[in-house]
């Protein structure tokens, strides 16, 4: 067993999430690898929720939350009923014998570990919520993790609440740890070097902060809300956050702020993005730099609000009337979310266009251990910003230029006054719409201005190296083709397939629009390809077809709201590569 998957299951309000977070922190502090994911519903109390923490040795980086459960912490009877199908043979089941019946489980298949959690909790602290800590203590014993680090984590988490809370937590865990007959099922080896525990949204928010983002506007919507929580919590440290009346206001405020000279970002999920679409076109027309985060969840409409999907790709690529340059990018990991957020702000400024960062619930909300970030690699490039009018006369904000990028000036600067207009306009920003459209001279203006804007796509493709997929294990016999969050589980599938005797690779896209067609085609052609996506219509394969003419017929698609795991992908691959 290379790693251990622990699932804590109960009702909302049982402290499932905080127990998961605690376990993640203990593993991270011990220098282990950990990956956590939460299954929940749109309900504040009750329902059935779980938090899965997969832990492995320091040198074994995890790429997904795992499949079958090795340790189940059952906090209520539903947890036994609902999670039984996910138990691996031989799994340990930690449960409170005074509250929960396990008759339905075959005792010969599982290690049943009765722990009188509630009794211990009441005896130690008089607070029933402490029963989770008892269970975590028992789990640490199963994983061979010493209590010392746990105590440090508890101190750092609860010291604000006073010594009594810290002590009762430690005592509760120690009692759980000491339950007779638990033993250690698998010794996880840490390297003692403490790691960060981050989810994709937090990594993205800090990346944006590092990249000089000073303005974030949003309306709450799962799974994008934790980005706004981060900005709101740090508003006393130079990042402005505004919760708006709707997503229409969120994007238009960000445009107003960006045009005024601050790096601005707004974020939402698919439903909110639908409302933002008109504003997206405004940014395209005004050539205002703008970063929009779209964290996808299961659609259409309200869909499954707390479940994941990659169903918005084509929508985001084509949202808005008319044509204008935009950049669409989907980070492939939590770590990449940090760097891409910072770089998106540079690209938006450099090409004066909207950049849409596509997250999804899986990458936005799952937590994983990360060793560190290269903050020295973060640079801030504001693009063609001028501090005075380079020419005589009125400022040409929309100057026809060979690369399509015109000089930009911030309000407050003397001599560069201009209007940024949503109607078609000439080099000064004067409208050529209502009174002038159709007149020969202005037909020419429209043609030239449209071309000027669109020329930025050629400039991006010429100057940036990012608009082509990456490849892993170049010499493989076949390749899993992915974008965004599906990439990590695909990497795991490669390892699983290796164990089964298959030589698989991954071709993965983070930047999806524009695409360097030649480079993309070159990488794909002549290779056996299997498209892997979390949606119904294989949208990435449609993008590939559109750009390269290459059709990927073999597909592994999932659209039930749950994330793909490495094992699922590997299981899907086998029949596709075994058939003759």
């Amino acid at each position, binding site marked *: 067993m290379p790693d251990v998957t622990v699932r804590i299951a109960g009702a909302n309000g049982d402290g499932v999430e905080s127990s998961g977070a605690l376990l993640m922190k203990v593993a991270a502090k011990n220098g282990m690898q950990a990956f956590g994911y939460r299954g929940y519903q749109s309900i504040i109390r009750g329902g059935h929720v779980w938090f899965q923490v997969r832990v492995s040795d320091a040198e074994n980086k995890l790429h997904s939350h795992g499949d079958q459960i090795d340790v189940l912490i059952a906090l209520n009877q539903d947890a036994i009923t609902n999670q039984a199908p996910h138990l691996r043979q031989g799994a340990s089941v930690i449960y409170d014998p005074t509250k929960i019946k396990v008759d339905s489980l075959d005792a010969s298949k599982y290690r049943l570990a009765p722990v009188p959690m509630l009794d211990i909790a009441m005896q130690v602290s008089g607070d029933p919520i402490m029963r989770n800590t008892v269970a975590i203590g028992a789990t640490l014993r199963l994983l061979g993790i010493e209590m010392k680090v746990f105590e440090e984590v508890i101190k750092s988490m609860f010291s604000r609440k006073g010594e009594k809370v810290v002590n009762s937590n430690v005592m509760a865990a120690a009692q759980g740890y000491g339950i007779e007959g638990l033993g250690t099922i698998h010794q996880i080896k840490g390297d003692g070097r403490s790691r960060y525990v981050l989810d994709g949204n937090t990594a993205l928010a800090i990346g944006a902060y590092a990249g000089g983002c000073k303005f974030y506007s949003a309306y709450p919507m799962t799974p994008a809300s934790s980005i706004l929580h981060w900005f709101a919590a740090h508003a006393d440290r130079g990042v402005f956050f505004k919760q708006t009346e709707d997503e*229409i206001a969120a994007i*238009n405020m960000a*445009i107003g702020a960006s045009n005024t000279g601050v790096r601005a970002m707004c974020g939402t999920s698919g439903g909110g993005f639908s409302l933002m679409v008109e504003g997206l076109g405004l940014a395209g027309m005004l050539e205002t730099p703008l970063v929009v985060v779209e964290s996808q969840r299961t659609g259409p409409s309200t869909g499954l609000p707390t479940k994941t999907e990659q169903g918005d790709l084509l929508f985001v690529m084509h949202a808005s009337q008319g044509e204008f340059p935009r950049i669409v990018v989907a980070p492939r990991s939590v770590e990449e979310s940090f760097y891409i957020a910072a770089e998106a702000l540079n690209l938006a400024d450099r090409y004066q266009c909207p950049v849409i960062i596509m997250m999804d619930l899986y990458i936005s909300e799952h937590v994983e251990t990360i060793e560190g970030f290269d*903050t020295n690699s973060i640079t801030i490039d504001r693009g063609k910003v001028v501090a005075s009018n380079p020419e005589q006369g009125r400022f040409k904000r929309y100057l026809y230029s060979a690369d399509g990028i015109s000089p930009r000036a911030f309000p407050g600067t003397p001599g560069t006054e201009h209007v940024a207009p949503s*109607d078609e306009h000439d080099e000064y920003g004067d409208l050529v719409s209502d009174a002038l459209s159709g007149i020969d001279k202005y037909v020419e203006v429209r043609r030239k201005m449209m071309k000027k804007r669109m020329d930025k796509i050629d400039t991006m493709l010429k100057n940036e190296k990012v608009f082509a997929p990456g490849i892993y294990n170049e010499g493989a016999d076949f390749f899993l083709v992915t974008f965004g969050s599906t990439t990590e589980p695909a990497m795991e599938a490669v390892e699983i397939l290796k164990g089964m005797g298959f030589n698989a690779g991954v071709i993965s896209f983070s930047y999806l629009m524009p695409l360097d067609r030649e480079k993309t085609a070159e990488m794909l052609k002549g290779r056996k390809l299997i498209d892997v996506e979390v949606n119904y219509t294989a949208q990435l394969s449609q993008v590939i077809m559109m750009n390269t003419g290459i059709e990927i017929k073999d597909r592994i698609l999932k659209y039930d709201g749950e994330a793909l795991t490495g094992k699922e992908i590997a299981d899907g691959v086998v029949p596709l590569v075994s058939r003759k």
Partner: protein
Amino acid sequence: MVIEATTKQVYSSGVKPIWCPGCGDFGVYAAITKALTDLKVDKSNAMIVSGIGCSSSMPQPFSTYGMHSLHGRLLPVASGAKLANHDLTVIGTGGDGDGYGIGVGHLVHTARRNINLTYIVMDNETYGLTTGQTSPTAMMGHKTKSTPFGAIEMPVNPLALAISAGATYVARGFSGDTVHLAEMIKGAIMHKGFALVDVFSPCVTFNHDNTYDWFRPRIYKLDQSNHDPSDLGKALGKAVEDFQTNWEKIPIGLFYQNNRPSYEELDITLKNGPLVKQGNPTKEQILGMLEENR
């Protein structure tokens, strides 16, 4: 650099607006120019933001900074501009369809935020640029292409709406009296908070009910009637007087003013100065943010 504004030409870009001859919006243009001139506003520090509609070509003839945005969305755009740099003088200019129809939700929320903006609505009770359909401020019975049998919806009362939503400066002017209107706009620009100036700005092409001649005998000035603009209840009373008198008596002037702190004064980030002038984070600060996740 402070530019001393001595003539009206300082604020002119030379671009002609699209309005029909006789349009009320010319009066509004003249009044804004007079207000900027009288207050000696630095044109490089002024930003005029519009939505879409006839009124929304307002930024074009000005030599200040400007944004011409989306139908109904000028308030969020203008808010973003002001929040990013609250040293700017930001003036929103739109119409009744723009501000009281498609964008009315933003009016409510911008008012309660009390962002230091001036919002001028050219209210002609019709949709001009789309060639004459009914508007949210059209009077009952008003006939247009979209209401050929007469409007059957109550008009919005923008002043009562703005006052109850928390706007801290609410005034009304008439584009047939630009001297008075300029005073209302000057008061709005000087006011520290969200200021609405609703302007009767007749559409000479599509609205033959609410004409200059219709307004003149009906309007009277609040400053000549012992109105106390600091009294919320009295302000609301005056705001509904046109409705109560079936538009026989229509007050113009300053209805309400309150000096509660503006959004920029209360916001924890903006207290440290305009956002656009705040520096980027240091490596140590970035690492500090990351360290919180250990």
